[in-house]
């Protein structure tokens, strides 16, 4: 059972390679796995440096999303006025397609790296915000009563009850945000890349597309998808390690 996904993947690759070879479809239309690996090996450092650049944007954005999401969630949880003021705007940011606002952001922010991070943060911060806000409200009412009985103030309740109760929710949100940060980084790179900013895997994909280097394009895609899988599993492992350490997960 454990190896089922791997075996299925290998089988699919074999069928793919066989289909490409038997049908004789040219590699600039559909390259086979072998051609893709060859394209990667032809210029590994170029693709890996771009991957590093994309990951740098992704992690910077994830960090920003975590800080921003938790800060806003604490604001929402501690004041009805703030909640009423913030929530609609968070939704507006969440539902506005990033492709549509990315050119504006790139224009306004100026610094290419910073504008990529801003775009990816906008895409990524909502799950952290929504989950953490739900987590802050998740402590059982009896415990809130208990804190009241002992005269605990809002800061003490936040620090000793509501924030710790929100941790599992935050970690679940962070895992979703990790994937979204990568998506946001790539989308922003596409927009910036078509404006001539050469960095990141999205730019490599654009460039390979212009030059009809389809195997190289696929190699970049594979790297992106591997990065997404690694981020997802990494954040999942981080979450279970933290919950194990706390002893309630």
């Amino acid at each position, binding site marked *: 059972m454990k190896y089922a996904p791997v075996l299925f993947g290998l089988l699919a690759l074999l069928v793919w390679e066989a289909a490409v070879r038997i049908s004789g479809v040219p590699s600039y239309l559909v390259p086979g796995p072998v051609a893709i690996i060859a394209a990667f090996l032809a210029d590994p450092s170029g693709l890996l440096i771009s991957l590093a650049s994309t990951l740098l944007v992704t992690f910077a954005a994830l960090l920003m999303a975590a800080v921003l999401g938790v800060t806003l969630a604490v604001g929402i949880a501690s004041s009805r006025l703030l909640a009423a003021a913030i929530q609609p705007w968070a939704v507006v940011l969440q539902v506005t397609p990033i492709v549509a606002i990315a050119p504006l952001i790139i224009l306004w922010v100026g610094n290419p790296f910073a504008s990529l991070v801003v775009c990816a943060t906008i895409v990524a911060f909502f799950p952290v915000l929504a989950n953490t806000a739900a987590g802050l409200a998740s402590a059982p009412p*009896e415990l809130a009563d208990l804190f009241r*009985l002992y005269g605990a103030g809002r800061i003490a309740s936040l620090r000793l009850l509501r924030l*710790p109760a929100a941790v599992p929710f935050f970690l679940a949100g962070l895992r979703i945000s990790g994937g979204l940060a990568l998506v946001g980084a790539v989308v922003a790179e596409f927009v910036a890349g078509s404006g001539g900013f050469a960095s990141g895997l999205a730019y490599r994909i654009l460039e390979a597309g212009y030059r009809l280097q389809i195997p190289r394009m696929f190699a970049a895609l594979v790297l992106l998808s591997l990065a997404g899988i690694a981020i997802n599993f990494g954040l999942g492992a981080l979450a279970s390690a933290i919950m194990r350490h706390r002893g*309630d997960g």
Partner: protein
Amino acid sequence: MSLDIGAGDFVALLGPSGCGKSTLLRLIAGLDKPDSGRLTWDPGHAPKPGDIGFVFQDATLLPWASAADNVFLPLRLRGAPRDRAMPEVQATLHRVGLDGFADARPRQLSGGMRMRVSIARALVTRPRLLLMDEPFAALDEFTRHRLQEDLLSLWRDLRCTVVFVTHSIYEASFLARRIVLMTPRPGRIDHQIASPLKPGPEARLAPAYATLVAQVTCEMQRSLAV
């Protein structure tokens, strides 16, 4: 309704669901404010935080904190430093029979042990008044009997006042010095019965206990019939 509770008493509030037992307990704790009516304390005895311990039906422990840290919580909320409070925390855990479980997380403990932690948390501030809201209702019968007996000996040792909400006639009869019968819709106090029992584990087998249970059952049926 009108109810006086003297220092050192063990009062059971007994009645079916919806008769306002828990509400009354929350009013005493100051967790709710009365819509009308008054709650007064003897002069100079108005409670400060820590004077009242509260035990809920569920243990309501912090799931991420060890038993010791859960018991430490009330002291921590009063600003006590951890190392200074730990001897008191350990002593309280010892009192409720949880030696050696200081580092256990709530999920590693049984339902009865979690309730013991919860009681220790309520006792750690040395409260003058202990309020308990059906604390043993979710436990199995054997665990419940053990905890009832241990609660009685804690009450005798600590000389605090206990107000104990329950819907079990047996529990009220076994534990309380005074049983307050409450009836629902509208919630009111129907009757009060003083217990003739000598409190202790032997009481469960005493003929007087059976008589008391019968008397309380009879009163309850009468009050619910009207």
